[in-house]
């Protein structure tokens, strides 16, 4: 029983990491039809931002808090730069965006290697996040995992509210549903695109901050995550935050359960088989968006 609950929490926390990583993609891929392979490197940029900030801010707790908005801005700015220089020229050509952003991701990895060196760097976790909470029944829940879960939930809530309630959110939804009509109605679609890309990339930066609490900070840290993140977005239904949320947690729990019963590699296979089977049944993903522009 203890083990079962522990595993359930592990699954949910894997899901939270997936969700944080996939959320920005759900925006840029889902809403703009841009396959951004450099998303993983924006995550890396967020993680290195945390590292750099820790060189100047000695309190680990404060530097983590400062890192969240700063990493958002840094990764967001990188995203805007990518959008302005390259992606803007490639809208409606998703396969080309894939190739171009893949090249950019390789360049960013090499840049990180040149700036920070190939070995991993480490950040200090705040004392508050290194421990764990003991629940009745002998279950322990790691604080850093709880923090990431909270961060993922906060990001989803903030994004949903922004899309539903703000004028910008309305404009983004309008552009997604019918770009031409939106443009004719006086919405500056290019500006909306750029803002969307800023937010999507910025969320990758936040994911990067969270990942410093779990694993290595190195030039290739993003590549491990990018495939899983795309799976979440595609299975969830392109353009659907709701779908990404459900699928991220479902895949996390499936992965953790499969791994507990078998081994890590077999669990990965189970997850992939489940995804293939699911897409046979619903090729459009869990939820679909009714639009004219996105078939």
């Amino acid at each position, binding site marked *: 029983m203890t083990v079962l609950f522990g595993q359930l929490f592990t699954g949910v*926390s894997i899901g939270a*990491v997936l969700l944080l990583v996939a959320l920005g993609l759900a925006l840029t891929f889902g809403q703009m039809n841009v396959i951004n392979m450099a998303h993983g490197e924006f995550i890396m940029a967020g993680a290195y931002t945390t590292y750099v900030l820790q060189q100047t801010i000695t309190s680990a707790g404060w530097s983590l808090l400062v890192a969240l908005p700063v990493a958002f801005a840094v990764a967001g700015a990188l995203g805007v730069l990518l959008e302005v220089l390259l992606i803007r020229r490639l809208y409606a050509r998703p396969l080309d965006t894939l190739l171009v952003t893949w090249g950019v991701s390789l360049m960013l990895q090499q840049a990180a290697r040149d700036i920070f060196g190939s*070995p991993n760097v*480490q950040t200090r976790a705040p004392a508050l996040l290194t421990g764990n909470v003991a629940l009745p029944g002998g279950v322990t829940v790691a604080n850093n995992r709880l923090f990431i879960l909270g961060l993922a939930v906060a990001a989803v809530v903030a994004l949903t509210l922004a899309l539903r309630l703000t004028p910008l959110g309305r404009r983004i939804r309008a552009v997604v549903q019918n770009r031409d009509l939106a443009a004719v109605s006086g919405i500056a679609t290019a500006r909306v695109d750029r803002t969307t890309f800023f937010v999507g990339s910025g969320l990758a930066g936040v994911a990067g901050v969270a990942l410093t609490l*779990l*694993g290595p900070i190195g030039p*290739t840290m993003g590549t491990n995550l990018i495939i899983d993140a795309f799976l979440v977005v595609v299975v969830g239904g392109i353009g659907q935050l709701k779908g990404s949320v459900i699928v991220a947690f479902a895949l996390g729990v499936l992965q953790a359960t499969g791994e507990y019963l078998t081994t890590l*590699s077999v669990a990965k296979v189970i997850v992939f088989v489940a995804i293939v089977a699911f897409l046979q049944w619903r090729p459009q993903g869990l939820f679909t968006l009714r639009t004219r522009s996105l078939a």
Partner: protein
Amino acid sequence: MSLFRGRRILAGTMAFVVAAALAACGSKTSDSTSGKGVSADVSGDTVKVGLLNSLSGTMAISEVTVRDSIMLAVEEINAAGGVLGKKIVPVGEDGASDWPTFAEKAEKLISEDRVAAVFGCWTSASRKAVKPVFEKNKALLFYPVQYEGLEQSPYIFYTGATTNQQIVPGLDYLKAQGKKSVYLVGSDYVFPRTANKIIKAYAKANGMTVLGEDYAPLGSTEFGTIVNKVKSAKADAVFNTLNGDSNVAFFKEYTSAGLNATSMPVVSVSIAEEEVKGIGTQYLKDQLTAWNYYQTTPGGANAKFVAAYKAKYGADKPTSDPMEAAYVAVYLWKEMVTKAGSFEVEKVRTAAGGITYEAPEGLVTVDGPTQHIAKTARIGKVGADGLITEVWNSGQPIKPDPYLKSYPWATGLS
């Protein structure tokens, strides 16, 4: 008509493909027959050696430091007059943590650059990938990392530990500490799987229980489930054969699950001083490692090595076991070549047996038949400063026994 033409095009294409394939095969066979041994280019007053390490990818964290220390040895030898009066020119290649790339680059170093010897590789997978290349070309590889044993090649010198010089002493130490059960965690490739086979055989013969065994792919960073399993198994100790940056994620997860060196010590065989820095000292405090060398190992030769390394690469750069073994490899090669009076591979091999060298880890001796070296085993504990201090050593160099022939419990493993 169109069908006929279609057939002709098809036939033409087929003929072309077959011809191309034959041509490719032809060049391949001519390659391997000419591979009787590409002799090193020593016509000038220089001799080239190859450096083959991962400078990118998941293994870069470890292998870059090995490259640095090979370079240090090369510079020192050059400053002292070179080898047989020739200056050493290092030719570096990046294996990129990718085994086919290692094989490709090894071939390039041997056939194109015509190096006299190659220093490098870290993972056993990369060594296994290049082994046939060195054997086919009759060229020399110096392999500087501890590994799983059960191997011997006339064209490889193993300057890191084999299992009876690292893993078996590690297990002996745990047994002497009264640990009765272990949990095995490793990366999913040849070294951890073979090492764990040996550990299980040892455990069976020594009344120890293995409570579980889990593998994660190289580069894997999600250890939630594995740590949950380890925690609920309540083993006396964990034997860790994870490689590369997976260790970072593993130890972070281990610490946040509330486990530590007191509640469940971890013995690692692939984490040295450089990795301790990358993982974070607070996650590793007081955890155990099994190696043959630490930066803190006493002795004049080591003091000299550490000082030279820090002078070249920075005071904050630690030295580690694989770096030391790589550094020693270059000096051993120099001794072999000097004794042979030639760079020719067969003469160097014949001269190798019995060569001794006062290494930073203490006196090492090349064992002629196995081409491994006799080394002292050392168990260490990670300190708060990130350095590892010795808590036990074997007292004298242990003769290499890659096939564990001297251990009755190991029969049938190889």
